[in-house]
């Protein structure tokens, strides 16, 4: 079963190569891309089952034993992330196929879209299964370089401008990560995560804290943790809707995943937990306040994305099994819901010709289905009771209350407040774009917002258009998946808890990579 592990990287990589050679045949390209991601989803599901029942999988690449060769490790957390990511990537891919078919952009340079998308998937999966800090860096670089191409897709002026910010910020974060790896290697003489974990305990605490902070800053930029989140609302909204959706759903979560690994395996000590709790608080509040101020749906969603990263950091920063389990559940919930909302924004852009809520109106009458597809995940993100957002937040609050410090209680209060602010921001979108009669919008012109939105294919500001069934279908699939998270919250939360228990201290992970061996 260990042979399954590298497949999640190899399949999309080979798929990308195949798709690139099929550049002149868009139909074959689409088939290859969908098939590759479908295969990864299947492999991921099998792995999740095996890992959950029979314990973690370890692959020593090339047959070299652990500290010398590169190891790929799949525990419950990694398997869960692979499955959810594959699901999201597939859904967004189908959405973009629908959009591409409708726009008729077979002639435009989008022949690189599908291969790049698969490379992005490769990087994401590689980061999830890396058992080696440098391999994690390579995974990050693969996904980042693919994301550079995707965010500047088409090379319009707005995208180049937004992409430049994103690229420069990402480069700085990568350099910090690389420098941190170099220093960790200087300190402990290895880049294998399990071995680092074993040896880090012998390093003086002050050196540990420096290395810890360097890693956290590098990952914090990727995960968009305040104050390192400034780049995100600036760069995400200009990209095409499917690209924004997949970035919002996955890329920040890869950063969060790396933070979970750092906090639980490399530096399991509690030294920086209070600082992380304060950052979580600031991320939540600042993001939510930013969301309330926005008039463009994509920007608004980007700010809610930043704000909800705070919840996950809260769970990680608690440093308890309950906290890690709740954070894991929240990551899964947020990947799916945030992607769905961005797909919903893509549908709104499609049907309304804009994503500015001051220009939209009467969409409920124009397309009740899209209204439903936006409303359900909006309530979910806001944390309205039966939905998974509520369950995730409740679990986080319970874990905080269990810890019981005054800071934890402040975070519970802030979490509840931010949840309300998120709901307020999203309901404002609902009221303006869907509920308000279209007649109220007539004659309203905001020159300031003229250049904010850009519809794919350059058909900006046209009247209501027909929405391809494939786009609706993909979004509906994601909405169903988000509702399924609620229905199957029990088993999923059980899985998250078991994943959290795996991560209670580095022991389990180290034991997996070095069965029965203690260092030296």
């Amino acid at each position: 079963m260990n042979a399954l592990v590298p497949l999640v990287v190899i399949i999309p990589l080979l798929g990308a190569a195949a798709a690139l050679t099929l550049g002149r045949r868009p139909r074959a390209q689409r088939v290859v891309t969908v098939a590759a991601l479908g295969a990864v989803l299947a492999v991921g599901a099998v792995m999740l089952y095996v890992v959950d029942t029979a314990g973690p999988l370890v692959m020593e690449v090339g047959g070299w034993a652990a500290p010398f060769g590169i190891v790929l490790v799949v525990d419950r957390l990694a398997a869960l992330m692979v499955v959810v990511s594959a699901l999201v990537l597939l859904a967004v891919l189908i959405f973009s196929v629908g959009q591409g078919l409708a726009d008729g952009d077979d002639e435009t340079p989008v022949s690189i879209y599908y291969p790049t998308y698969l490379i992005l998937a490769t990087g994401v999966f590689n980061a999830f299964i890396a058992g080696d800090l440098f391999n994690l860096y390579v995974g990050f670089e693969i996904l980042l370089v693919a994301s550079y191409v995707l965010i500047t897709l088409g090379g319009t002026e707005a995208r180049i401008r937004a992409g430049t910010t994103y690229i420069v910020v990402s480069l700085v974060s990568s350099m910090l990560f690389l420098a941190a790896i170099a220093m960790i290697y200087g300190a402990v003489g290895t880049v294998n995560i399990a071995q680092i974990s074993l040896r880090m305990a012998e390093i003086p605490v002050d050196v540990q804290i420096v290395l810890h902070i360097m890693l956290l800053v590098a990952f914090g930029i990727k995960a968009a943790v305040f104050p390192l989140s400034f780049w995100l609302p600036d760069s995400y909204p200009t990209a095409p809707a499917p690209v924004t959706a997949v970035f919002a759903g996955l890329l920040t979560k890869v950063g969060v995943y790396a933070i979970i690994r750092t906090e639980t395996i490399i530096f399991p000590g509690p030294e920086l937990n209070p600082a992380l709790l304060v950052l979580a608080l600031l991320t939540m509040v600042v993001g939510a306040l930013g969301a309330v101020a926005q008039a463009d749906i994509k920007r608004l969603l980007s700010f809610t994305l930043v704000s909800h990263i705070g919840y996950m950091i809260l769970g990680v920063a608690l440093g308890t099994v309950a906290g890690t389990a709740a954070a894991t559940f929240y990551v899964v919930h947020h990947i799916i819901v945030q992607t769905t909302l961005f797909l919903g924004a893509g549908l709104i852009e499609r049907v309304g010709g804009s994503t500015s809520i001051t220009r939209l109106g009467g969409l409920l009458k124009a397309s009740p289905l899209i209204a439903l597809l936006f409303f359900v995940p909006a309530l979910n993100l806001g944390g309205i009771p039966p939905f998974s957002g509520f369950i995730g937040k409740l679990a986080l609050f319970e874990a905080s209350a269990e810890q019981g410090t005054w800071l934890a209680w402040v975070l519970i209060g802030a979490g509840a407040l931010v949840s309300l602010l998120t709901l307020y921001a999203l309901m404002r979108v609902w009221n303006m774009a869907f509920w308000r009669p279209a007649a109220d919008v007539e004659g309203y012109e905001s020159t300031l917002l003229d250049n904010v939105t850009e519809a794919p294919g350059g058909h900006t500001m046209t009247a209501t258009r027909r929405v391809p069934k494939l786009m609706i279908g993909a979004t509906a699939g994601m909405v169903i998946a988000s509702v399924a998270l609620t229905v199957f919250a029990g088993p999923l939360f059980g899985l998250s808890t078991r994943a959290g228990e795996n991560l209670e201290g580095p022991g389990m992970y180290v034991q997996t990579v070095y069965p029965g061996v203690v260092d030296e």
Partner: protein
Amino acid sequence: MSVSLVLLVVMAVLYACGIYLLLERSMTRVLLGFLLVGNATNLLIIIMAGRAGVAPIVSDGVTPEEMSDPLPQALILTAIVITFGVSAFLMALIYRSWRLAKVDSLQDDEADVAMRGGAVALEGEGSERADDDTEFGTRAQAAVSTARNLEEADERAAAEITTSHDDAPGADNTTDNTGGAHR
């Protein structure tokens, strides 16, 4: 672990210059800064390898203590390739940005400018002076008012050729306030 002082000093200088350039608004300088920081990081990795030694090939009479650490060299090789690829992409991006906007510097986000403009408008008429230093004034579209407008520069040059050279030479040096509005 013994460290070569020369390498350490070179690394520090590269980092200092690189970070200074990265903070510039001009994209070309950012690229140069990225290259410097990338090389500084590569040097950091090689410094972390410890003392230099013989090639790490197992042969008679060579003990592991005399060998240099091969792993950082492998890491650097990967890092160099990644830096190379990303630099190529950045150069393409800069070129594209130049073709489209005719500016080398990074421009502000329009929605941010719009939001800031909205806030200024609420304060009243007299506040226009307050944001002069941001180079935006009341026109949100003129992202960088000092941006050189090539068409206008060409026209001006053509006009200068046709007219006599007795005109005041300072005309070229004055900042063109209307230039940035048209692209």
